[in-house]
């Protein structure tokens, strides 16, 4: 995947996050459309916010805030996980940049 596509995906992710926070839903359909087209062309953009975080998750680059605990959760995603369907199957194109805290 070229760098520009990745930059655009990250920007879209950021724009969507801001709009959701401000409860602006007028462009929901446009976002759904973009996501649909990305998916159709074999690109998966995953927001792992809310998911459990473990040492084994090499799909994320985490900054751990506060104390460590048994159950750690991703509380904020700065960059989403991007996976592309390449000639050798699924390929991790971008690791998510996330903040992890104790649940």
């Amino acid at each position, binding site marked *: 995947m070229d760098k520009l596509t990745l930059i655009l995906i990250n920007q879209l992710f950021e724009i969507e996050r801001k709009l959701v*926070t401000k409860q602006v839903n007028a462009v929901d359909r446009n976002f759904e459309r973009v996501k*649909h087209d990305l998916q159709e062309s074999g690109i998966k953009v995953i927001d792992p916010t809310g998911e459990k975080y473990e*040492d084994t*998750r090499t799909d994320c680059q985490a900054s751990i805030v*506060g104390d460590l605990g048994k159950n750690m959760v991703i509380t904020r995603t700065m960059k989403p996980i991007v*996976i592309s369907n390449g000639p050798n199957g699924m390929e991790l194109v971008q690791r998510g940049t996330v903040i992890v*805290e104790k649940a």
Partner: protein
Amino acid sequence: MRTINYAIDLGTTNSLISRSENGEVRVFKNPFGQREELPSVVGFRGERILIGDKALEYLEKDPGNVFGGFKRKMGTDENFWIESQARTISAIELSTIVLKELKNFVQDDKSINQVVITIPASFDTVQSNATKKAGHDSGFTNVVLLQEPIAACLAFANTHKDVDKKGKWLVYDLGGGTFDVAIVSIGEEELKVIDHKGDNYLGGMDFDNAIVEKILLPKIISIEGCSGWQAKSEQKTSDFQKLYFILLNKAESIKKELSGSPVAMLDLTILNDNGEEIDLYFDVTRDQFNEVITDKVNYSMSLVDDLLKVNDLSIKDIEQVVLVGGSTLVPLVKQSIENKLGASVNQSVDPTNAVVVGAAHYAGTKIAIAEKSSEINTTSEIEKSSFNVELSYLKATREICEMVLLKFSGEFNGMNYRIVRSDKGFDSGLKSAGPKSMEMVNLIPNVANHFEVLFFNADQSPIEGHSKEMMIVHGQYNVDGQPLPNDICLEIDDFDYDRTKLETIFKKNDILPLKKRLYRELSKTILKSGSDSLIINVVEGNGNSSPSSNQVIGCIEVKSEELDFDLIKGTEVEIDIEVSESRDLTVSVFLSMTDQEFKEVFSPTSRNVSISRLKEEVQLLSRKVESEFRSLESTENYEQLQKVVDMRDELSEISEQLKTAENSMNSDLKYHLEERKRKVAQKYDTLESAGKGSVEKSRYLEEKQYTLELFEKHPDIDRRFRSKFDQITSTEEDMMKSDMAHFARVKADELSTLNHDIGWESGENVANIFFYYKHVYLEKYLDRKKAEKLIEAGDEAIDKDRMSEVKSILHQLHGLLPKEEKEKVTIQGTGLG
């Protein structure tokens, strides 16, 4: 004679591995994360060994179990205490783990056993020997050490073979966390480090922190309503720690952006003192950045001064300055060196990997020691690893993580295993094998997840030939789910052949529930003032048969009067189709042009039938039956003929009743008629397939052959034709097995249209089409005189092989045809293309 070829930069902060390949150097990427650098950090979390990025995440939070910077302790008797395992580990052992992990970066060569490892110029004999031991312990039989400044000089010298190399070079190495400066003397045949200085706690990370602490945080605190961050920062609250990490991430981007541009924009969302999210946008200039890092850069320059002074050298004694380390990309660093030394600063080699690149150049010339026993060793490894492992896991799941059970038997003591997802988004790390080991693996939603299980000896060396593969499908396939009994399809227009056709949305045996979103274009204009409508017709049956032989399970008819505006051909329609586990069908249609949404839930007990659509279907079917009747009339196949006559009668009956259905009090009538029509259509499909299936299949093969010939003849033809061809032929196997003549006909027609399009694009068919317009339509043109002139010009263009001109003439001739000739489309259709 073989050379060593491989080189490793075993750094304090990051490590890299490279290979010399016929004079070119390749720096390998970490298969996890695709970065060249592997952070030199090792963690022991539970039974797991984490190496690199994952370990780095825990370095600050779990210092009792995660270790970095151990290079500084090489050659000392200081050991590290691992809290979770209640044992100590030496810097050599930690380096060994990093070196073995680097070996895993090289996927195409499993027999690396000789290497050049770089060491700082400051390393004494004990430290050098400790590095060598780590190399041997990680499985290298021959370890050659090379000083980092020399490696860096080699990288530059090999890139610029024309540069006069003799003299004294200054190597300024500012990495992520350490700084070193060295003077290298280059003679005719010798490279020698004369002296060096450094600071183990100065690097690019200090620059990031300076941006956060001296630019970003003061700015945030100065904003009205955000002053509360001052107190939070003093108390180091968790909110503040979170903000600090976000700011550090932004600082890294700002630093990179300011390397190429004088201004970088910060775009940030933070919580104000009332807990509300606010968006901040402000610029950070390169001048501001320079101001906050000047003291650090000046400090590094003072070390350069000291080094020159101690060695009685003046600035003019330095021939070349070589910059190493990612932080030298900061303009102020380069500028300061240029201002101070006045010597030419060489930045032509990527400073982030210059050391490992130079070391590989060296390894490419260093003769490898002949190895006698490597093959024997490999055999004994395999003999030693006589173990068995049985994997148990669910092959399909709806959980986002799934348990894998590994049952080891035989000689597995001290062995380790590692489970890795093929996209490298999951890595169990190295785990020790037990009789019953368990691992939770994370899955990517809604896809088949492939994993590889790898096995390692106690010394972390891979056991070849024992890896296992497994696949777990997430989401769609629920083992307890119900499969669909038939295909579910959408009816779409096929105006090229005056018919509608089916597009399969869900296939037979797909597991419920199912959901899909489609985007389609309108195939015709629907005027608000007209009588046309848009029909979303969802049918159940065989996706390869004709639409009318399938059962309608949901139909939304958007009538023209319901529209807010006219719908123009080509605009987009968004369709969501969902089938629940209890078989409720939800269809929703969104018209982007009018911003209107139509949604309906159809349950299997309340089918929806559009009378206008049914009338049209009966009409189309009658036409096909009539044509079949005519073709059989002249034959003596009375049995078939009788069947066709029965069908004709039944359709005529349905047609009659449909005339009154709209106003009938009997609300069941339309469902009854729809069912009768479907039965006739199924009979027709069967009857027709018996006679024409093989004919249509032959036609398909002929068309396919012609397409291939066209591709061969016009190898430069637009790629879209090839992808269309691939799409059409992708169902060939199913089509050949099917007994539906309709399926083969649709595919043959699609190929025929494609051939026509290729013929037009390549000019192959243009002459034929022209002759058709010249002779067949001659009597029909509205302006005969004009047409004759155009034909005359067309003849001339053909003689001179000017096909684009002929195409233009054809467009004009087409415009002269009467409306009925131009529009041969007779079906109303669904409106979906």
